[in-house]
């Protein structure tokens, strides 16, 4: 859930409640006030009528008007209660309108100057009052909704405005990569965001610095290793050419050279990885991956033959893409080599190319491999001494450079697929 939505949702519930209570309270207060006003009018009216009646007993008779009427009726003394004013609502049939209209009634008792007790009933039409109540109700409801909408809208915009720096930071973080750190351009006058900007910039710089140090370290270490490796290899070469060398010594030398070759190979792969990461292969051209794969397989023909490994090719498309040729060759060679090294004697390799995929499958004595470690450096899952554990890492690194997806599947055979963008 978005922070914005979350805030609005959290704001909406209490607002709905508080404003509903407020609206109800306001409405009932107004109603109460209106009732009070009517009752005051009735009481005033009562005072006037009684005052007049007391002065002049001839006025002790009913009066029926359009808006208000009163009725006077004599009552026995024992029924009279002079302290009582009773208010109630009622309806009255109006002949002209042919319908019942709401009225408010005040019933009270009084003692006239002639010594008799009377009951006074005053009726006042509350038709206007009803109208008033209705208008008030609708106004409050409208106001309620309008206010709610206004508050939410304003909150939404204020939120967007105040949190814009946060979203810039998030955008920047999403595109951040230690290989190409971009400066965080997020000018703001808000202290908290300035602090956050600073913290993130510093963390990013540290990250990039550490990344570069690591990269440089690997690069320098591999460079520094080149010369001593060359010296050792060349000295062994000279030693083996010595005519006094015995067969046993030559066998020993062969073993040392084998180990040394592994080291040289590993070092070369590490250098290659650094160079790919440093983008040192900028030149590209149109290459046919299917053709390269066929050539690589043909190159290895004798090597395969020595282990009686058969290769089956299925070519649907030349699979032409814009790539650096030597990287394309390295990527495919590493995959082919992988399919060969981990194969069985007398095993099989299947090479399949479609218009967007290059798939290599091979038989092997290994069962399904761990996908997580498969493409990691030194993530090798066999103890073969002739495997550097870098071949697939190189494949992955090249694939990443060109947005190619590398996937591994196991269906009795180990299947590596390169999926290219169309």
């Amino acid at each position, binding site marked *: 859930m978005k922070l914005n939505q979350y805030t609005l949702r959290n704001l909406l519930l209490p607002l709905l409640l508080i404003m509903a209570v407020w609206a109800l309270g306001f409405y009932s207060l107004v109603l109460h006030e209106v009732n009070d006003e009517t009752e005051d009018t009735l009481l005033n009216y009562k005072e006037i009528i009684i005052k007049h009646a007391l002065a002049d007993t001839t006025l002790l008779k009913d009066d029926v008007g359009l808006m208000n009427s009163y009725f006077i009726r004599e009552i026995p003394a024992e029924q009279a209660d002079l302290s009582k004013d009773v208010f109630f609502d009622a309806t009255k049939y109006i002949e002209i309108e042919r319908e019942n209209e709401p009225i408010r009634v005040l019933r009270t008792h009084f003692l006239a100057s002639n010594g008799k007790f009377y009951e006074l009933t005053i009726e006042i039409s509350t038709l206007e009052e009803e109208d008033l109540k209705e208008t008030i109700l609708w106004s409050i409801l409208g106001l309620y909704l309008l206010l709610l909408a206004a508050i939410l809208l304003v909150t939404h915009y204020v939120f967007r405005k105040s949190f814009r720096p946060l979203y810039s930071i998030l955008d920047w973080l999403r595109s951040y990569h230690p290989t190409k750190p971009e400066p965080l351009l997020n000018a703001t006058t808000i202290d908290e965001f300035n602090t956050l900007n600073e913290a993130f910039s510093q963390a990013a710089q540290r990250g990039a610095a550490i990344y570069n140090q690591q990269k440089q370290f690997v690069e320098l270490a591999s460079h520094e290793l080149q*010369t001593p490796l060359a010296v050792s290899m060349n000295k062994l070469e000279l030693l083996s050419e010595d005519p006094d060398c015995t067969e046993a010594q*030559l*066998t020993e030398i062969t073993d040392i050279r084998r180990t040394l070759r592994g080291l040289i190979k590993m070092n070369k792969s590490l250098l290659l990885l650094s160079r790919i990461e440093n983008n040192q292969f900028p030149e590209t051209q149109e290459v046919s991956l299917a053709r390269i794969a066929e050539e690589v397989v043909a190159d290895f023909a*004798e*090597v395969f033959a020595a282990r009686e490994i058969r290769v089956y090719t299925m070519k649907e498309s030349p699979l032409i893409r814009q790539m650096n040729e030597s990287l394309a060759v390295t990527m495919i060679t590493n995959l082919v080599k992988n399919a060969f090294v981990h194969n069985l004697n007398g095993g099989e390799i299947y090479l399949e190319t479609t218009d967007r995929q290059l798939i290599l499958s091979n038989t092997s004595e290994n069962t399904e491999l761990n996908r997580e470690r498969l493409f990691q450096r030194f993530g090798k899952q066999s103890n073969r001494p002739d495997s550097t554990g870098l071949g697939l890492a190189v494949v992955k690194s090249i694939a990443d450079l060109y947005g190619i997806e590398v996937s591994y599947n196991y269906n009795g055979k180990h299947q590596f697929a390169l999926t290219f963008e169309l």
Partner: protein
Amino acid sequence: MKILVIEDEDSLREVMVRSLEKERYRVEWAADYPAALWKINDYQYDCIVLDIMLPGGNGLSLLEELKNMRKRDSVIIVSAKDSIDDKVRGLDLGADDYLTKPFHLAELNARIKSIIRRKQQDGEMDLSYANITVYPDRHAVYIDGVELPLNRKEFALLYYFVANPERLLSKDTLAESVWGDYIDQADSFDFIYSQVKNLRKKLKTAGAQPEIKAVYGFGYKMINEE
């Protein structure tokens, strides 16, 4: 034949010098930029083996100096840097070849031989050993003047033997010379055996005098016993 080895790493320079001396070249060396500059200024060499990372200056500027002196010494760059930029710059500045460390001495030897031969002939280059002559530029082999058809890999093998006659070549060196860096499965070097066997048979049928001899399990050597 005079060769100058410019390399600051003592032990590497020493093995290169020893290996070249075995090929009966006159070898001189320099360990830093000023010494190298002084040598190329004062003498003429058939081939200069140049490390481009030198104390006191860049090997590439030595190439420029050579150019300014209008000298035609052949140059092979040896570098720990396998960077295309350096390679292109080096070759642009007039270097004849570029070798990345680490390399096999046999490889260095083959390249030096080719360069010297090319310079001597000023035209199509060939290398000969006894009655075998190879033309690397057009991948052709002649035995006593009669062409021997070979496939690409057989040719690469034979070329390596002819460029390094009477020298013990290990299986891995040979495999690398044919299949490049990509061949690194030690247990698969046995296929070299069948390749050499084929080549041997073809040479013998064609009447070649030199013979490819196996040396224990280590490798092969081309010798001419006649």
